[in-house]
């Protein structure tokens, strides 16, 4: 068994109002970053997972996302294995 570094990105579902993203967008515009067209704020969760393979680690983390790490009503998630720890 190896230890894999797994990154989970949890993001608001498309179309969901994201006031925090809106506030950051506004702040960026006021600093002159007019070219920024949209801002969405999510969160990154970093895990170290013992598993037989990268695929097994990813599958296990995806399961945990559906159960706990993301709220299916409002959030999407993406799981990426970043290599061995």
């Amino acid at each position, binding site marked *: 068994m190896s230890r894999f570094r797994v990154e989970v990105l949890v993001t608001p579902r498309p179309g969901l*109002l994201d*006031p925090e993203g809106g506030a950051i967008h506004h702040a960026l515009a006021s600093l002159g970053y007019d070219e920024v067209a949209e801002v969405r704020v999510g969160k990154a969760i970093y895990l170290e997972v013992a598993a037989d393979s990268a695929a097994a680690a990813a599958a296990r983390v995806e399961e945990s996302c559906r159960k706990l790490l993301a709220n299916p*009503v*409002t959030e999407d998630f993406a799981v990426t294995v970043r290599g061995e720890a």
Partner: protein
Amino acid sequence: MRIAVITLPGSNCDQDCHRSVEAAGATAVPVWHREMSLGGADAVIVPGGFAHGDYLRPGAIARFSPIMTPVVEFARSGGLVVGICNGFQILCEAGLLPGALLRNRSLRFQSHDCALRVERSDTPFTSRYREGQVIWMPLAHADGNYYADPGTLEELECEGRVVFRYSDAEGESTEEANPNGSLNGIAGIVNEGGNVLGLMPHPDRAIDLALGWQDGLPLFESLVDSVRQRAPAPVAVAEGRALAGTAR
């Protein structure tokens, strides 16, 4: 009559709910989150607070507390369950109520009084109110912005499951009266069976005029009335929304 008040690590309003239940004439039974049973309680209150620190998302970790298994079973069998503030968030995460509570539109914690319009007086939690009545109570939350997908939202409205809506003093549900950006100004809803209520404002902080308001007390009294009425035999509820099972 015994009403269970759940204490999760981080619950803050368990004592307030305890006093509210007793003020309504029932016995409040404190139940620690590691318990595996509700001990024969007649109804359940999931109080406000920051269960498990609200880390990850409010309610996300709390829904996996051991006590939530019997709470979900109790609700599924028709038992009366009320979630207030953090309790509402937990019930949504646990799938007992649809939708989710997002960060307030202001991005800030908000703590102030609010007016609510009572949309239904024929639920087990609101029989002591009048339909259309404007009631006042405090709210205190950072994540009270009710969201549900358009399909769910329409279902809630069509089935009359929005129980409390933010309003102004005259009962108008205006944009200015919506404190947190909740869709349709929703402050409280019931599940399909009509036996699970979740609301963001705090009736448990409005049971005593000395503190400003007494408009929360009828909610607890309605709950007590309902338990009392249901106790002898299974009771059907109006408009075909039958409540499955019997509460003990």
